[in-house]
């Protein structure tokens, strides 16, 4: 058989395996819903026809069947015969190690959010609030910078691999956009025409006074 034929047959086998996996998963889902429903329905019928005690026995029997089915599934999964739920392996690969910097950043963000909330309901005065916010924002930015520096080599590597792949496929731009670890080209924040408050770049209405913010000339809808 030609190499192409072998490849095609391998693809068909793999496809059939995937189908078999999918059908086994559907079977599992069907049993997971069907068995309890059938058991309860039968128990209700038996309870009406015969007695409450017999209904309990029917429920017990269906629970026993369920036990056997679940243990069977467990052993099959352990031995490798049964497919895992779709996406499970992919998620498992994304394991996160303990990340002290990430934890610190999360805490600082939480602190800033708390401060915002407490200030809104009047438990912190403006002076204290401003002092706290300055300090916490500085710390947050420092942590973010550190995180970027940590990630920078991997990010560079990832960008390089992506560029090379695209070039091989003939899709990507011929020259690289930039080699800096982080593109600092961010659109500037928008000032409201009415009250001059600072708003997000993509704001449509001012968050302080509610007036509409005019679109800048030549601005596109591309996300920053």
């Amino acid at each position, binding site marked *: 058989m030609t190499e192409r034929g072998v490849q095609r047959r391998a693809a068909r086998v793999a496809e059939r395996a995937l189908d078999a996996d999918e059908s086994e998963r559907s079977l599992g889902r069907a049993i997971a819903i069907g068995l309890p429903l059938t058991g309860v329905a039968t128990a209700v019928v038996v309870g009406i026809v015969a007695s409450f005690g017999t209904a309990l026995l029917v429920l017990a029997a269906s629970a026993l069947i369920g036990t056997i089915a679940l243990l069977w599934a467990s052993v099959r999964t352990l031995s490798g015969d049964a497919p895992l*739920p779709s996406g499970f392996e992919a998620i498992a690969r994304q394991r996160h190690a303990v990340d002290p910097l990430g934890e610190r950043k999360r805490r600082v963000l939480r602190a800033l959010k708390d401060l915002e909330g407490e200030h809104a309901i009047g438990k912190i005065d403006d002076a204290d609030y401003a002092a706290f916010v300055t300090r916490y924002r500085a710390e947050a930015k420092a942590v973010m910078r*550190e995180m970027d520096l940590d990630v920078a080599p991997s990010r560079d590597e990832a960008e390089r691999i992506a560029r090379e792949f695209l070039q091989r496929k003939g899709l990507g731009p011929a020259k690289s956009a930039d080699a800096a670890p982080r593109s600092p080209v961010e659109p500037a924040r928008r000032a409201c025409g009415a009250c001059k408050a600072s708003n997000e770049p993509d704001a449509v209405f001012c968050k302080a006074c509610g007036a509409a913010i005019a679109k800048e000339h030549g601005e596109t809808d591309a996300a920053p």
Partner: protein
Amino acid sequence: MPSLLHVFGNTFPAFGASLLLGAMVVASYTFAVALKAGADGRPRTLQAARFGAYGTVALIGVAVLCLAYAFVTHDFRIRYVAHYSDRSMPLEYLITALWGGQDGSLLWWLFLLSAYIGACVLWLGKRYLELQPYIIATLMAVVLFFCVLMAFAANPFATNVAGPRADGEGLNPLLQNYWMVIHPPCLYTGFVGCSVPFAFAVGALVTGRLDHEWIVASRKWTLFAWMFLGIGNTLGMLWAYEELGWGGYWGWDPVENAAFMPFLTASAYVHSVMIQERRGLLKVWNVFLIGLTFFLTIFGTFLTRSGMISSVHSFAQSSIGGYFVAFLLILVAFTATLVMWRWPELRDVTPSLRLRKAALAAGWLVIAACGPGLVFVWRLGLPVGWRVTLIAAIAGAAVFVALEIVFRRMTSGLDVRPRRPQIESVFSREFTFLLNNWILCSLLFFILMATTFPLISEALAGKEGKVTVGPPFYKAWVQPLGLVLLLLMGIGTLFGWKKTSPEALRRACYAPLAATCVGAGLHLVLGRAVGFPAIVWSDAIYPGALGAALRVFNACTPLMGVSLCVFNAAVIVQEFALLFRARAQSGALRSTPAVLWWAGGVPGFVHTLFSLSPASRRRYGGYIVHLGIVLMFIGFTGQSWNVDREASLFPGESYAVGDYNLRYAGARMEVDNNKRMVFADVDVFKSGHYVERLSPAKFIYKKQPDSPTTEVAIGHHLRDDVYLIVGTVNPSNRNIAAFQIHINPLVTWIWLGCLVLIAGSSICMWPQLELGESRVWGGARGVAATAASVLLGIMLAATPAARAQTMPHTGTVHIENDAERSLFSSLRCMCGSCPRDLLSTCPCETADEARENIRVKLRAGETRDRIIAEYADEYGAEALAVPPNRGVLRAIWLVPMVTIALGALGLARLVRRWRGGGSPSGSSAPRGRNPEGTGKDVYDAQLDEELKDLDD
């Protein structure tokens, strides 16, 4: 009815027993596979462990269903079924007999545990994959313990040695009532629920993922278990109130205390985890708290069942105490070792194997070394009480100190001190939560000490020195602690996270303080006029200065209780007002459709709550829970104004008490399948208006004709409960009836408070929409959660039509005046067959004689103290309701008070350390290219974006 018993022949009981062994096998299999999954990290192994967990759940379900079948079909070959049911019992009580006795209630515990495991594994799904294996393994270990217990010591499927009986013994009528149907399941749901957060903690310790992950993951489970602990305790109070018929709802019974203690630690835990989430502090403390909560749930079951401390729950005594002690020891040793292993992470130092081994070695060496050292201390010539105190303190502190020494030595070269203050200000929620933990743990320690004091006193002073700790002692001491808790609850709410500006704090105090002063003033002036005087004097529990001081404090309890409740209510209302003001200012209020406001305001309020961010929703849900607790405290304060009277009436006669006039209309008899019922109808008039007819009764069961049960009749109202008990009805003397009459003010507020608590908890637990979820699914989940809670609330609120209740003896208690009442409440009945009854409640003959003797002495002019002393001389220290305040017995209040004071000192030192750590200015030195300036840079935009999205 034809049963399928014939199909099984003689093997059905054996089949049931083998199911338990099968559950043991499956749980072991799952335990092993889960550990393997943790070790190799493969998703396949984890999925196999999950299936194994589901299989265990199903198998336990089979066992419970089989036992239920045995009850319903009256399979009296099984000893448990024969002992706790009979052919005449209606179906619903047959089902409740499942947990009526020990073996069945252990199986019920296992069943609830398996339900939790099933729900937890399902909920975990594809999340927290690193923690899952160890969570499953821990839960399986607990399942294994109960399976082993039941297989070898308390098998519910064990058969009668003598063969099947014709009929069973029937369930104790005390247990055949509505509240017995739901009280144990609810309480068990709370107890068992504490296993899940504990499993999360173990998973975090084993994997080293000790930051906020396990706390966020276990949050809803903790809240759920906490809520059911609260519900279970309240139902216990309802049961005691409606069924036990002594007129009250909490007797400080050891079993009641054992159910209350995990509630206290769980309450402390839900507050202190918020500090860990925000600050990364208190890691060791939180792990300790959740471990202690779980320990207390098992310990509580152990106390109930081992019979070590006599209690009303004495139906549950048995010999399985040894198994529990072994399990508790293994639990403590295992958790301690884990904590020692993870000491570096818990103390925020980069871990190394050397550090870990050193910590473990130090910890275990100290524990081993403590042995001879403690023996040495024991042999010192100190008073025994001091010896015991010293040993306990030394052993506990030694391990901690050893670990710290090792830790500091090995990290002496490293810069491990925090680089900036851990908390910014003492005027912050962080600090008040620490205070919350302090007072809750103080209360816990006090109750623990008092509950186990009979054992301690016996160990210290021998059999002659054994004392009992009765309700008067608890009432005198717990009231001050409870009031401090109430005060701190209100003050804590005033503070905000990080720091509360002094000016803001001053502003926030005006309204609540004003309300409190007005409330206190009104109470002082008008209290007596409305029947709720502000100062109520009672008897001192000790002679001497301490007794006098306690007496003065307790006299002011009604005033302080009412004032503090007003304070708390005002603070909570103010918080909500601030919330709405902030939302109005920011325009967020417009997100609630106006129609919801016009429809009475409440729908709008509820909608606002649900549209808050999760953190805010939990905060304001927490305030509603606090409101519920305030309402319960109002109910507890009502105890100060209880009125208790006795009267013998002929039909047609009336008796006046307070505003009420009770007219005995007459007696009547009814009969049903298993009992004869004698009702005494009483018409209740208040201020001349007819209110209702109450019919207290006596039920004479065919199975137990010698011990008729007394059915209480209660008229529930917002202001007062009219509580009637009929002692005897004498048909040969024109149906003269002897009544006990209690007017219990404000009790209904306790049940209302619990409902509000459930509502608040539900708000806290409200699920948040995940990204990508449709609104419909989120709404459906929320509705399901609420429906379950509301259903529970309806069950709580519905008053059952017929109840039954047993007192161990029949007869009535005659008390002629308040002097007698006060004496009888301080002395125990020593007949030997009633567990802890006071002379004021026990109707047996021995108690009658004792009461008569005391009456004679009173008429002869003897003083109260002398009579008490003579009674104690005759029967021993055990005869007193309050342990005498002398010698080593002082330890019961001295040790807790000293510990509480030391705790406060420790707290002060901790706060000082947190405040002073490192330089006040610093954040870490930035490594980035941009200098730390005040100008805006690219990170500001990203920061704002992330803050906007932060929604946990």
